[in-house]
Each structure stands twice: as structure tokens, then as C-alpha cells.
């Protein structure tokens, strides 16, 4: 029996590896398919510049979605991220406009630290309202979504908040438009953020707790996990990711307005789900999330580069493509 079961175990291991891999690979397969379609639609599509453009501008959603992966894995939801971007970015620019620090380099560094702190605080607020206030996260973050957006509108008096100092602007610009060893900075940031997130989610105690809390609050509690703390920290991580996205967003246009980040929350959640994380919580797939964000951006890009679609129908076709991509994923996974 023991020999036998040893033999069994190895076959099994091989099989289940295949299983796991295929599910994780599915979003990447969908991505590959899209790239092929894109190349057929327009030869420019496959150019390095275009792909780099797409990857670069997917940065905001991708980074925010990495945070959302934590929140969703732990069984919650954050609808406020879009408005949080607007709010945090507005405060950052206002701080830089305030001119309290004369030296531009120092000012920029201080502004970045401030941004990270504010982002985390916003996340903390979301976390506390949901956990301590025991309000369904959908509603809690819908509420803070209104609050952050409202405060932004109020700060900007409905208009735009623009970075005034051109010195700061040119100092800060490379943070979005620059590149390191040929790799655009935003892509680099995506990779770093995702790698860290993957490490936290898969290789640390906290990450394991996130998964446990997301699959069963009760089991987590009976295993001595401080459920509310884990959930709150996930919200803080989300806030941090928003702050990082803001650090990239501000140098791009150097301004924010009341429309900044509108509907980004839906995009982030979509990226997470397309990437293979279940909305019910439990299992997070960080790399899948990045892939999901990239897929979303690609779909838009392909639409624009193709010549045969009426501009009125773009939304409809985008919707269909997302559904089809999910169906492709499903059928891939089912065959496994």
C-alpha cells in the first residue's frame, strides 16, 4: 500500500500542478489572444511604442487593482478608490502649490511622503468604517466615495487643481515620462509593486491570513487571527496603492479635476476579477490582476486602432470583448 500510495501521490501532484497552472495561466492566454487580434487589426498595434504606451497607461488601474486584490481576497470591496485618487492627488498638488518648502527637490520628496501618508489614512478610514462600524463594505466605501469626491470638488471649487511651479513640474515629469534602461518608469513601478504584493500575499504570514479571512471569517477567528486587523490592513494597502498610483498620475498631466478617477473603481475590480480572483474572497492572484488591467487597456487600444467600428459602438464592443474573454478563460479552465 505504501509503495502504491507513493506512486499515486506523484501522479496526483503532476495533475494538480497542471490544474493550478491552467487556471492561473488563463488570463495570460486571453491576453495573448488579444495581442494576436490586435496585430491583425492594425500592424501599428504590435509596435514597441504602442505596446509600451498601453502598458504605461495601464499603470494607474494596475497598481490600484493590486491593492484591490488584497481587499477582495479578504472578502471586502472598495468602491472609493477612484475618488480617493482624485482626493489624494488634489491634496498633493495643493501642498506643492503651497510652497511651504523652498527647495524643489525637498518639496517633491515631502509631497511624496505626504501622499503616501494621506493614501494610507484614507484606506484606514475605509477599513475602520467597515470593520469597527460593521457596515457592509459596499455601502461603507460607496459612502466614502461620495465623501472623497465631494471634498475634491470642494477643494477645486469644481474646477481643476494645477501644479503651478514649472520647476517642480519639470523635476517631477520623468516619474511618469522617464524610463530606466529603456523601460518606462510606470512599467517598472507596476512590476515592483506587483512583485512586492505577490511576496506579501504568498510568502508572508499576513498574506496567508488575508486568504484565510477571505475564505472564512469564523475559521480565521478560531485560528487566532485578528480578523478586523487583517481586513483593515488590506484597506490600508489599498490606500497605499492608490497613493502610488497618484505619485505616477500627478506628473503626467500635472493637474486634477473633479473628473479625475471617475469609474476607476469599476475598472480596478474588473481587472482583479478578469485576472482570476473570485469576488467572494479567499484566493488572490496578483499577477493575474496585472494581466487583467493590461487586458482592459488593450481592448480600448484595439478599438481605437481598428478602422471599422463606429465610435458610437465602442462601448458595446468593449463589453462584448470582456464577456468573450471570460468565456475563453472558462472554457480553457474547464478543459483542464
Amino acid at each position, binding site marked *: 500500500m505504501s509503495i502504491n500510495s507513493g506512486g499515486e501521490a506523484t501522479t*496526483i501532484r503532476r495533475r494538480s500542478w497542471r490544474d493550478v497552472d491552467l487556471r492561473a495561466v488563463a488570463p495570460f492566454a486571453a491576453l495573448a489572444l488579444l495581442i494576436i487580434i490586435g496585430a491583425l487589426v492594425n500592424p501599428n498595434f504590435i509596435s514597441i511604442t504602442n505596446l509600451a504606451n498601453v502598458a504605461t497607461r495601464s499603470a494607474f488601474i494596475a497598481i490600484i487593482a493590486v491593492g484591490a486584490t488584497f481587499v477582495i481576497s479578504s472578502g471586502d470591496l472598495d468602491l472609493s478608490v477612484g475618488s480617493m485618487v482624485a482626493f489624494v492627488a488634489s491634496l498633493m498638488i495643493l501642498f506643492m502649490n503651497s510652497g511651504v518648502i523652498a527647495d524643489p527637490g525637498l518639496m517633491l520628496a515631502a509631497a511624496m511622503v505626504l501622499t503616501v501618508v494621506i493614501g494610507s489614512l484614507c484606506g484606514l478610514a475605509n477599513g475602520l468604517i467597515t470593520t469597527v462600524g460593521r457596515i457592509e463594505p459596499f455601502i461603507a466605501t460607496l459612502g466614502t466615495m461620495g465623501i472623497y469626491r465631494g471634498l475634491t470638488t470642494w477643494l477645486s471649487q469644481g474646477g481643476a487643481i494645477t501644479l503651478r511651479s514649472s520647476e517642480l513640474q519639470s523635476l517631477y515629469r520623468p516619474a511618469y515620462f522617464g524610463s530606466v534602461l529603456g523601460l518606462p518608469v510606470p512599467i517598472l513601478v507596476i512590476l515592483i509593486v506587483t512583485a512586492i504584493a505577490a511576496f506579501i500575499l504568498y510568502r*508572508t*504570514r499576513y498574506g496567508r*491570513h488575508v*486568504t484565510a479571512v477571505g475564505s472564512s471569517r*469564523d*475559521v480565521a*477567528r478560531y485560528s487566532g487571527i485578528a480578523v478586523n486587523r487583517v481586513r483593515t490592513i488590506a484597506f490600508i494597502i489599498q490606500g497605499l496603492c492608490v497613493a502610488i498610483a497618484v505619485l505616477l498620475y500627478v506628473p503626467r498631466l500635472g493637474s486634477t479635476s473633479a473628473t479625475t478617477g471617475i469609474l476607476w473603481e469599476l475598472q480596478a475590480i474588473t481587472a482583479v476579477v478578469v485576472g482570476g480572483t473570485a469576488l467572494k474572497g479567499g*484566493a488572490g492572484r496578483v499577477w493575474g490582476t496585472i494581466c487583467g488591467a493590461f487586458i482592459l487597456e488593450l481592448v480600448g487600444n484595439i478599438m481605437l486602432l481598428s478602422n471599422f467600428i463606429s465610435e458610437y459602438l465602442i462601448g458595446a464592443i468593449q463589453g462584448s470583448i470582456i464577456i468573450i474573454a471570460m468565456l475563453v478563460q472558462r472554457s480553457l479552465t474547464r478543459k483542464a
Partner: protein
Amino acid sequence: MTRDGEEALAPVLSAERVSKSFGEVQVLFSVDFDMLPGEIHALVGENGAGKSTLVKILSGFESPTSGRLLLDGEPVSLPANGAAEALGIILIHQEFNLAEHLTVTESLFLGREVTRFGVLDRRFMRAETRRILDMLGSHVDEDALISSLAVADKQMVEIAKAISRDARVIFMDEPTAVLSREETEILFDQVRKLRAKGTSFVFVTHKLNEVMELTDRVTVLRDGQWIKTAPTRLLDSDAIAQLMVGRELSSLYPAKHEPDVDEEIVLSVRGLSTGYVKDVSFDLRKGEVLGFSGLIGSGRTEIMEAITGLRSRLSGEVLVHGTPLAADDFMEGVRRGLAYMTKDRKGRGLLLEEGMTANLTLQSLGRHVRYGYLDPASEREAMARAKRRFDIRVRDDRVRVGRMSGGNQQKLMLAKVMETGPKIIIIDEPTRGIDVGTKQQIYHFIAALAREGCSVIVVSSEMPEVIGLCTRVAVMREGHLVGMLEGDDINEQTIMRYAAGLRRQAS
């Protein structure tokens, strides 16, 4: 009831050379099984032997990989997902199958609601539910939400649900695992009544005395193989146990080891009250095995949860090694060597969607952190150790815990709790759903722990277990600690008397 004319009766439902594989893992190997009309057929075997799988196949919840089923002698393929109920074939699942948001009445009639002119006849269904529950001697409120019920009450609802249907064959997968003696008696009465009317039962259990008491025939499975089918009266418990395990079993309980009277008091509970539990005090010495007995719902679980900090206390204090333990802080207790194993393995014990290793180390991840990250090799090692130590048997190492056999889940849960390296261990229902062979292992394990200087509290509804294992037994009744028995007082009659409120110690 004798079954001398066995051959004369045609089986109602039978399986011929049924095999079952999940993926590449074979779980059943060409098993034959039949049920005669009006018989109670015991299905026994070790944990993971394939009992649940076999009854699921016979009731249409799984389909066999090969072999065939015969209903009234005709080959059938049973409809999936419980639709076989229409043919009078009913399964009481080993794990509960009740939706938490429904009421008792709603659960009982789920999928076959009674309507009048398209409108639910709620009054009729409630009355009917009440009637069936009364018949089973259950006091569960017919309007209570399932989520508010205790584990045992859920089981009674589950049984009521099966009995209320017009069944020809009822499969019961360990229905008594969470029931008290009284409830078990009532259940058996009902089963006998239905048998008299010609209903057949398949009864899966690990309680061999129940097999002897109730059943007409026994079928033994081992490692997915059919071993033997025989009339019960030709066997005894030991013989069955031997058939199951494939070797002779020595005595079930290890020798008791009384701690010295002047041994250090490691845990001291003073005047503890919660909402239901009132003013409980007791001490636990080093190396002691203390039993907690009592009827279901007597508040044993509640007090243990209050001690460990999983539930808030209203008053009272808990001292560990003489220093107070903070209320509502489970982790502090764990840090100070206190461990608690829940009785609700599905809802509170294990992450059913995860693998074994993730579950095993969940509570003790700190031990596997190296340079700030989790070391998979160290976790794998722990898993291998636990599998050996607790004899966890799975045929697929990466199986989701939710798909493991019930008994192996139980062992995994015990292993998980022991991973924290506790000195004071509270185990709520240690052997729920565990086969005799493993039970013996667990009992010896507990005794060994005590000998090594650990202290153990065993909360159990199985009286023999408490009696065989513990040097002192506390008896709870309606939230009060009504007796603390020692020595010769530890016997079934005395415990029962306290538990039923016929006697009470001045405290």
C-alpha cells in the same frame, strides 16, 4: 427481527462491482452492496474507506466510474443532485446540508414545498414540521433560523427532513456523531418504526455499539475494497473492529495516569459567567485529563470559548499559571500555551477551499517564518510530521480539505491545534466521526500528552470516552457546573444523574 429468509427477499437497491475515481485517484474498487426491504444495514470502515462515497453513489449524488446500480432488480442510472428522492431514495449527508438563512420549516420542505393555489401553505408546513420534530422529541423551534441552531439541533432537523419524506431507502451517514444518548435512542425508535413499515436503512457509523444495537446486517469496507457482509448477530464489536482495521485492536483506552495532588495548578477558572453559563469555577492541574460531560446545550462549549477568549465574559476570571488571562484575547491564550479545538470543523475549524498544509499551519505560521517570509519547505516538513503523527490518510496530497473524508478532517484539525505547541489543551468533541482504530490512537495520544506534563480538558458527549480517559469529570447542566466527579464516581449512572439534574453538588 431475524433475517433467515434472506435469499428469498429480493434487494430493493443494490450496487454491482461499483468503482469510483476522482480524477486519477481511485476511491472504491469494485464494491458489491445490496439492501433488502425493511432491513437496517450497517456500513462500517476506517476513515477514508469510502463509505460516504458509496452512499453518495447509491443515492445519486455521485455517479460510479464503472459498475452498475439496480433498483428492484432493474439497472438504473439515478438522477443527479438529490432528484433520486422522487424514487424514494434519501441521503442524510455526513456534513450538514442546510441553508443558514432558512428557517427550520423552510429547510424541511425545501424543494418540495406544499402550495395551495400556488401559494405556500405555510400554516400546514409549520404544523407538519412541529409534528415531526415532536415525534423525534426535538424542542427546536420550527421558526428558528438554521444559523441559530446548535450542531446537534441541525442534525435533528436533517433527520426530520429525511424521515418526513416518503422513503423506501434512507441512507444515514453518521447521523449520531453529534447526538446525545437520548437523542440517539429516539432516533433509533423512529428508525425501527419505519423499518416495520418496510423502509430500508443504510447506517454509516463509527459507534460499534450502535451497530450491534440497531442493525440487521453489516458491510465492512477497507481502503475502498469490500471486505465482508454478514448478519450482525453473527458478529461482535471486536470482530467488526478487527475487520475494519485489518489487525487486532488492543484495549481502546490507555491506562489512566493520575497527577499528584500537589501538582501545580496550571489553569484556574473563578466564577466565570457568560450569557448562559453561570458562575463556573474549577482548577486544572499539570498532567491532568479533565473531562466535561453534560447534555447537549449544557453550555460546555460556551464556557470553553469564554475561557480561551473567543467569547466575551460577563464576570469572573481565568488564571493561567496563576496570572490572569485577558478576556476577549484568544491570541494571548495561545501565546501562553492554551489551545482550543472547536467541535464545528466545517464552520470554524478548517478552510474547506484550501489544501491541507495551509490549514495545518494557519494557527502557527510564526514557526515557519524565516527572514520575514514563510518557508514552504518548513511547512511541508510540518505536514509530513503531522501526517505521521495523526495518521492522516489521503489518497491525493493536494486535495481540498473540503473533499477529505470526515475523519481525516478531524485529525487534521487536531494536528492544526497541536502545531501551536500548547501546554493546556481544550478539545471539544475529540473523536467526532473518527473510526475505532484512530480513536484508539487519539486516546493514547491524549494520555501521552498528559504524561509529558500537558493538561487536557476533554469536552465530550460520548460518555465512555470521558469515563475511559479522564481522572476527573465535571458535569454541566443548563449553564451550571453541577458536579465534579472523581475516582469511582466516574461511571455512567452517576454522570447521568448529575447531568439530568437529579443530583447536585454543593459548590
